[in-house]
């Protein structure tokens, strides 16, 4: 795993440096645009750097609390959810974390999960109540294992640093935009008298371009960070839980869920196990996606037949995407790990619900009810036989009901 850790350090260094350059450039542009000539650039850059430094120190010291606060997560104790706690403990043993992470719950019907904390010693895992409602034990274990994979690969620290940097850039760019609009209006008459002010106009345009472009650039850098990471965390998740099918099923369920997460911040998006923001289509989807496509992740996990180690994941990934993903050294070190049998953990609340529904459906159809579906809102209704022949309006949307073949 040290290979991933080292490559993460290198990449984080690169991203942090690139973002730093962007940040200082914004500061310089802002300074010179504000003061009217190039001499304002240096203090502008220095102020921008100072702002970032303060934010970075805050993020390093309190970043996990800020992230958890943004997601409105609350810490829970073992008595609140023993199964979740047990699963986290099991997975931290499998990941050899040394310390059991703190466990948080987010009250949100949308199923999702994330990890926070600067290093493995201070790690936290947060899951939404929606996730707990629909996943069974094996699937929950897969999700927690994936999150601990992020912790183990030091992804969390990187996301925190880069997230703070992106936040500062966006903030400064917004500030610059306002300053430029105000000062631009005031100076426009003066700069038209051609008294050596051509330079200032160029400066203004450059500053404007930078201020408009840098938040986008920062976002691209930031998002590019997280995609490969998701695959690697999936590989770790499969290894830790020794049951790739659990994670695959969980991802499917998470992808199938319709409720969007209420935390829609772009800064926190890359930390979740599935993308909380609705994905854009086309080229933008490719560039701005925080996560790789879910069906591909599921397909890779399903293709690892029989073993749960990195080598199996890499082979499966090559089969799906045509190239290798796990670092060479990790592959050499990887010894074969057998997939464990599933734990029969009892049905999920959802499964119980479905079974109840099947039973009541069977009863209703036996007593002559017919199934009708609304052509507008697709609501499925069961109607007593006495009303079967009549024209009825959908009680939900007033649309027309169409007959459904008994199936």
């Amino acid at each position, binding site marked *: 795993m040290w290979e991933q850790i080292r490559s993460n350090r290198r990449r984080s260094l690169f991203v942090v440096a690139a973002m730093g350059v962007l940040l200082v450039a914004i500061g310089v542009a802002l300074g010179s645009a504000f003061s009217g000539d190039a001499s304002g650039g240096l203090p502008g850059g220095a102020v921008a750097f100072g702002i970032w430094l303060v934010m970075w120190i805050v993020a390093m010291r309190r970043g996990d609390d800020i992230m958890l606060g943004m997601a409105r997560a609350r810490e829970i104790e073992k008595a609140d959810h*023993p*199964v979740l706690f*047990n*699963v986290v*403990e*099991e*997975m931290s*043993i*499998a990941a*050899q974390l040394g310390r059991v992470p703190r466990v948080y719950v987010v009250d949100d019907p949308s199923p999702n999960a994330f990890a926070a904390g600067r290093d493995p010693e201070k790690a936290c895992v947060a899951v939404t109540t929606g996730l707990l409602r629909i996943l069974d034990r094996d699937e929950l274990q897969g999700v927690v294992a994936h999150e601990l994979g992020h912790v183990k690969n030091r992804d969390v620290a990187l996301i925190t640093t880069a997230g703070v940097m992106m936040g500062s850039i966006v903030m400064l760019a917004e500030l610059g935009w306002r300053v430029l609009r105000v000062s631009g209006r005031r100076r426009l008459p003066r700069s038209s008298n051609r008294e050596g002010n051509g330079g200032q106009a160029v400066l203004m345009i450059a500053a404007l371009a930078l201020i408009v472009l840098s938040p986008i650039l920062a976002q691209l850098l930031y998002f590019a960070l997280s995609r490969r990471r998701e695959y690697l965390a999936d590989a770790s998740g499969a290894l*830790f839980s*020794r049951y790739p099918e659990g994670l695959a099923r969980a991802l499917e369920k998470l992808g199938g869920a319709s409720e969007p997460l209420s935390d829609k911040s772009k800064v926190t998006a890359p930390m979740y196990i599935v993308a909380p923001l609705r994905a854009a289509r086309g080229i933008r989807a490719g560039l701005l996606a925080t996560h790789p496509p879910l069906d591909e992740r599921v397909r890779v996990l399903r293709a690892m037949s029989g073993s749960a180690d990195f080598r199996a994941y890499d082979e499966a990934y090559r089969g799906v995407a045509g190239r290798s993903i796990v670092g060479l050294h990790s592959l050499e070190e990887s*010894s074969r*790990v057998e997939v*464990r*049998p599933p*734990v*029969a*953990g*009892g*049905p999920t609340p959802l499964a119980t619900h479905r079974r109840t529904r099947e039973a009541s459906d069977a009863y209703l159809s036996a007593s002559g009810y017919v199934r009708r579906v609304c052509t507008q809102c697709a609501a499925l209704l069961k109607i007593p036989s006495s009303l079967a022949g009549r024209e009825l309006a959908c009680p939900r949307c007033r649309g027309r009901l169409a007959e459904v073949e008994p199936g």
Partner: protein
Amino acid sequence: MGFWIFLGLLAAAGAYVVGLYNGLVRGRNETRNGWSQIDVQLKRRHDLIPNLVETVKGYAAHEKETLQAVVEARGAAVSATTPAAAGKAEGALTAALGKLFALAENYPDLKANQNFLALQEELSSTENRIGFARQAYNDAATRYNNRRETFPGNLISGSFDEAELFEIEEAGERGVPQVSF
């Protein structure tokens, strides 16, 4: 000149031996640490069992044989100290527990008991933990043993004992309590 080269070589050789020795010590510590991880979970498991037996007694007191088997298997497991002995005893304990949980299927009241359900979750979680900790321990032990037995480690490993692997006997290991509803 020759003297200095000799001294340099001597220093290099000394540093190499020190590195080798420290590597062995590190490996041994990793192995011990791995075993203590398993040990914590085994103790946890042993501590849960009396509670479980009491709970089951409340509903199925006449199933004396099965309960007795669990208690005896626990006693044997508690007194086992080496990884090999523990592996054997834990396998027997897992098998006995499997029977107990299978028996619980016949007692709907017991199956609905909150305390029983909580204990069942704790026990199966503990078994999972033992499984995951075992993987880490066996990896560390194998690495350490290889380092100890291969050249040149074997020249200085006289005072290092071989690490035993921890394997729960197959029949028991697969007997994780299966619950169906």
